[in-house]
């Protein structure tokens, strides 16, 4: 486990500046800190919400890592697809790297409209972190 100073060197900035979340918004603080949790490359998914719209206003993106937003209620199932694609392509030798996966959902996208997709993804045992 690294301390803060070590993190500042080891982990590249994964959510850059210029996003349009409110000044002082906790969402981007959480995202930055969660994404400091691994040195491996990370692919992120986000359900529709403040975090997603404010960080990806076309033609700009604040994400410095591969990122996908699909819809409001399906961050977990979208990530199921990405994570499965990773396993499929790794099996075929098309991808060599170790990659980690993180999905961000808001309260609605998680335990309201998105509960079913999350439940299915958990039951199938996909290998990703889900952050609400």
């Amino acid at each position: 486990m690294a301390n803060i100073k070590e993190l500042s060197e080891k982990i590249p900035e994964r959510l850059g500046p210029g996003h349009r979340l409110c000044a002082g918004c906790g969402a981007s603080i959480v995202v930055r800190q969660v994404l400091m949790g691994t040195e491996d490359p990370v692919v992120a998914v986000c359900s529709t919400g403040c975090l997603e719209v404010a960080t990806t206003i076309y033609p700009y993106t604040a994400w410095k890592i591969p990122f996908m937003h699909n819809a409001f209620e399906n961050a977990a199932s979208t990530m199921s697809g990405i994570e499965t694609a990773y396993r499929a392509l790794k099996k075929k030798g098309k991808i060599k790297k170790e990659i980690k996966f993180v999905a961000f959902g808001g309260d609605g996208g998680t335990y309201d409209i998105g509960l079913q997709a999350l439940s299915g993804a958990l039951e199938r045992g996909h290998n990703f972190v889900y952050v609400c």
Partner: protein
Amino acid sequence: MKEKGWEEIPIGGVIDKAGSAAEYKTGDWRTFKPVRDEKKCTHCLLCWIYCPDSSILVKDKKMVGFDYEHCKGDGICAAVCPVKCIRMEKE
């Protein structure tokens, strides 16, 4: 930025320039700006880890300044600084 036509942009809404939001300057949202007393700073980097706008500049594990082009002036850095070396000044 001049807006591009449909033949000039990637298909499917893909943004192929990671972190391009940096081109969008949120610094002008500020009414107060953070100012640091370098002498007092212990380089604990709590400001860095808490900044929602990735606007604390760090080099070799040391806090070296603010990215005023993007800092929205939320004052979190000043609030979390354990040695109170950051204060918010009116723009």
